[in-house]
């Protein structure tokens, strides 16, 4: 069978947003803010102390090196402030009879299709901070070792459980 390039593309944000109907919980933005800012704080502390320390150790190197490091630290904070709402607005997914479709990413947009019959096992992961927000991440595994897990973050716990059970039912497990 040959793929024909003729015909209208079944791809594109306008068309697909209707299909990819489900979005993450709104509070995931705050969760992302918390984790991103925590990570940023560690990175910034490291960068600023390093630039301070090396600035005293090697006064001969041009000052722009340290300024660049400080600017980089500033950039990290800025990114942590900007990305969560954007990431939220971009995250879309849907699970239908055959496929789980997900699309996410700000600069690098990724769309992943996973056939439901190909799914091997499903995990619900809840980290300590996620638990504080009552959120859960659904991880879907297919066979294979590299890149065989697909994550849907930022679901409320009942919704994540409902999604998991729905996939299991689609998968043909009669236990539920």
């Amino acid at each position, binding site marked *: 069978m040959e793929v024909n390039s003729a015909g209208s593309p079944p791809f594109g944000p306008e068309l697909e947003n209707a299909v990819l109907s489900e979005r993450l919980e709104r509070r995931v933005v705050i969760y992302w803010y918390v984790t991103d800012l925590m990570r940023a704080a560690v990175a910034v502390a490291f960068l600023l102390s390093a630039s301070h320390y090396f600035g005293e150790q090697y006064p001969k190197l041009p000052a722009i090196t340290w300024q660049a490091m400080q600017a980089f630290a500033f950039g990290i904070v800025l990114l942590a402030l900007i990305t969560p709402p954007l990431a939220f607005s971009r995250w879309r997914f849907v699970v239908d009879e055959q496929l789980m479709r997900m699309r996410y990413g700000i600069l690098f947009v990724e769309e992943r299709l996973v056939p439901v019959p190909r799914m091997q096992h499903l995990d619900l992961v809840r980290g300590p901070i996620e638990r504080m927000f009552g959120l859960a991440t659904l991880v879907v595994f*297919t066979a294979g070792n590299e890149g065989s897990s697909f994550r849907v973050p930022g679901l409320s716990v009942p919704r994540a459980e409902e999604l998991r059970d729905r996939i299991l039912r689609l998968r043909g497990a009669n236990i539920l």
Partner: protein
Amino acid sequence: MTPSEIMQNSAPSCAPEVPLLQGHLHPAVLLLRTLDALRSAALPLVLGVLVNRYLLVLAALLFLLPLSVALIRYLTFQYTLTRTELRTREGLFNRQERRIPIDRVQDLGFEATILRRLLGITVASVETASGRGAEAVLDSLGRAEAETLRELLLQARQELQNKQGLQVEVLAAPSHEPPAATTAALPEWTIYQANPVDLMMRGFTDLRFGTVLIAAFAALQVADQLGMLVKLRFAASSFFEWLRGFPLFVVALLLCALVASALATSVISSTVSSLLVFHGFVLSLRGDTLLSRYGFFTRRQKTLPRSRVQRVTIEQTWLRRLLGLAVVAADSAATGRAVGQEKADGFCVVVPMAPLAVVHQLLPALSVGCAGIPTRYRRASHRLVFRMTLKGTIVALLLCGAGIPFLGPLAALAFLLVPLAFVMGKLSFGNLGFRLLEQHLWLRLGVIGRYQAVLPTAKVQAVALEQGPLQQILSLADLTVFVAGGSPTRLPDLTLEMAALLQRELVARGALAAACDWPSEKPLPRTAGEA
């Protein structure tokens, strides 16, 4: 078909629990373990005699502990092969039993090092799709016993497959081959035999100059650590003084000779290793199982069911491409391997080295239904070249900006990246291609080398489509196909429509194949991708 019917069908006519083969490890393995223990205890032993008596205690511990572990393992290890599963049992306090259903066995490997061959034993490793390597390692069995094990296992699997083949036919999957009438002693067809010339070529074209350089660098580092560099520097300066006495062309000649000798060493070593590792390589097909046997010192045997092949790759590094030679490797779900990567034991290699024409003739034998070899590939988008050049320009700008405070106007050298990126883009556009045929997706990629990958579309697990910022502007997309074996195969810079179409089609085929694999009460309708 309801589950109860399946249960009835799979209830075998003969009792499954009757062991076909049962056995223990070969006693000669104890000798090997003693040697190993001696080796690990040798250094503390020598030091104990020469320096400090207390180290002798350590030596004794190092000798006795592994030996007792090996002894316990030898005494307790038992394996049983029945019609449906392979069971291993071991352990004294921590008893462990492992059951591997035979239809879950991916590949079987046999490996016998020179010492093991002298003792007439071999290591058998059973791999499942877990991706963690061998599921059960039987270290070691007598050679005859291993042969019997393999024969019985293959036979049992063939029987199971025939049974399942019937089931699948009931489920109306026409692609399956009709079950063979006989299960006992299927004829074995030799489909490929490596001749020494090809193996020599494999060594010659295996340019590991990079590794030589890295080794030299590492040696330099070690020398530096040991404080020898100061002495070396002294020696070097006197050496340069001595060199200065010669005319320039003699020095250049010397330098060339040095490089040439380094190259020659790497070529000779890789040739020798190629000749030794793949000595007498024979690939044969029995029923639906690929068997390869090879090795001069360490003899290896590998069996891989053809229907379990997840991906076949035809790999040509640039020199091999110039000479029209190729290496073929097959990935099962047990291996994780990037295209172009090779492991030292060569277990994934199906054809160590052959002219491309021969490889193309061999392909139908390697993957079921792989008869249609594409003569022409579909091209990716021309905008790829533009994207690469643009990316090169951006990187060059960044590098230049970062370099100005340090290098001044010299930082403009970074713009040399732009033509380089253009050429890279041109080259990769020339190689990039794909073709979706009846049962297979063919991919071709590479920059100066050329790599082709054949993926059975029935094995597709998931497909991802990715767009970087530049690609969004140019409406290009990368397609990544996930199969259970090897690392994901990536096809960069298709046009967005093409990539999306391919993605949907591949996923639909994967889902359909999976629905046939897993009989559910209501077969899934095929809707996506046909649009």
